[in-house]
């Protein structure tokens, strides 16, 4: 129980803050993950998160070349995520459009490639590992605040439009026939997914965000008959994965992101294998 002893050590305020960020981000992982799983857009979320590297690289390049000191590379992540979500949803759906999986693959790869090109063009050495794999121990109090604000926005939006979103995810065509603004809500849902991805990159990184958006919700789906219950359980499973991951990585001196993901994976595969 080294981890829990360390948590209560007054010198380890950063550890408590990291744990709080992890617990609050579980709410986002649980709710958005539920939609990602039930609407079957996990690869879309994957493309959005990977294309974020393009935005990070772009911001880094601008910052260095034009000496814009305040420009944190992560600021480039949000426009990149929103643009790629928009491109996929706008051009990858409906009759006469491109194939959605092709759009996903293209956005995924081109986004990452652009990111690496920008990093190469930027003078000096720059390590992108922290963006690719994240580190929950490096989060700031601003990250904590942003995650809480995001949680509130998601809870209010999903609470207000619970039935609308359920209808759109379950049967888009029927929702359209009953007069719902299907495209608007689908775009909003994707936009919210994109924002979540950007904030959650701090915790598990670009490469593994998709795992936290899918594994806890997929585990929850095994025990849920309604979306609401699935959201609650997914939040719980994701919190358990984060606590386990953080404590094991702390004791074994491993990187936190991968251990969190493996914990979430074990929670998913164990019951799925025996069910």
């Amino acid at each position, binding site marked *: 129980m080294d981890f829990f002893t360390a948590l209560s050590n007054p010198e380890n305020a950063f550890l408590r803050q990291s744990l709080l960020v992890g617990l609050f981000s579980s709410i986002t992982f649980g709710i958005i993950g539920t939609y990602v799983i039930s609407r079957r857009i996990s690869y879309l979320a994957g493309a959005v998160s990977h294309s974020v590297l393009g935005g990070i690289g772009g911001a880094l390049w601008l910052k260095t070349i034009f000496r814009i000191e305040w420009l944190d590379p992560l600021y480039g992540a949000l426009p990149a995520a929103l643009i790629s979500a928009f491109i996929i949803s706008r051009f990858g759906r409906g009759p006469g459009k491109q194939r959605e999986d092709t759009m996903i693959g293209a956005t995924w790869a081109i986004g990452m490639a652009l990111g690496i090109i920008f990093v190469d063009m930027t003078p000096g050495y720059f390590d992108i590992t922290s963006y690719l794999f994240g580190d929950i121990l490096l989060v700031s109090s601003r990250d904590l605040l942003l995650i809480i604000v995001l949680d509130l926005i998601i809870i209010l939006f999903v609470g207000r439009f619970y039935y609308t979103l359920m209808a759109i995810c379950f049967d888009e065509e*029927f929702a359209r*026939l*009953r007069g719902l603004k299907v495209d608007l809500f689908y775009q909003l849902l994707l936009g919210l997914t994109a924002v979540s991805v950007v904030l959650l990159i701090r915790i598990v990184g670009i490469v593994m965000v998709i795992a936290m958006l899918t594994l806890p919700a997929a585990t929850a789906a095994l025990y849920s*008959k309604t*979306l609401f219950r699935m959201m609650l359980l997914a939040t719980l499973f994701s919190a358990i994965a984060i606590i386990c991951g953080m404590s094991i990585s702390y004791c074994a001196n491993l990187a936190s992101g991968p251990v969190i993901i493996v914990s979430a994976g074990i929670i998913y595969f164990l019951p799925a294998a025996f069910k």
Partner: protein
Amino acid sequence: MSPAPPIIKIDKLYFAYQDNPVLENVNLEIEKGELASIVGPNGGGKTTLLKLILGLLKPAGGTLEVFGRAPEKARRKIGYMPQHAQLDPQFPISVLDVVLMGRLDQCGKGLFSGNYPRSAANIAGEVLAEVGLEGSARKSFNELSGGQRQRVLIARALCSEPELLLLDEPTANIDPCSEENLYQTLTKLNRKMTILLVSHDLGFVSQIVKSVICVNRQVVIHPTSEINGNIIKEIYGGNFNLIRHDHRCDQTGHSHYDHFSVNRGNRLMD
């Protein structure tokens, strides 16, 4: 009795996906109280015709009116049942929540509340009873059989209290026993509303419907009693065995012929 205006009126309709014409010079009228079926081979344009009637697709030529208005403005009066196989079988949703979707247009308009009005749950209970699924409201949609799911989707269509019921392949993926149930349910519902269904299953169709609309690029209408081997051969281009079900018919209404476009048989009503 003076003839009421038709519920669906299609005039010289033309539709194509890119350059492939799917429907050509389609003329069709569906009267109030009819129970009619669209039949035809796969790729013949059945579902396209249904989607045009729903306003999900726009005709490339000709006119199409539903309840005397543009299709998308008539949607409130239409109940639509898609094939259950199109839906995600693993989606976590209760039967009640599926049925309530029929009332989505009444779903909370308030700033903070997006719930259905209280009355909606009562109607949902009534329509579930109507399709023989009373007591299943709390069940999960994904634990039902194919036939039960199809009936839930009929209940959902009924939940909006439609005047016109459109059903896409109601007998696809269901067992013979459910088919018999469905047959009784539709006959009962037809006393209250006009029903138009799409089916590739002529055996089912010929038992219950009053007229058959054959779609294979063009539209040809037959009364069910006229269906015989030749007509089937004409529609599907092959030989089929057919068990014929006779209806007691008398002749009313339309009987215009146009050999170049649409061959319209005598409309027969029970």
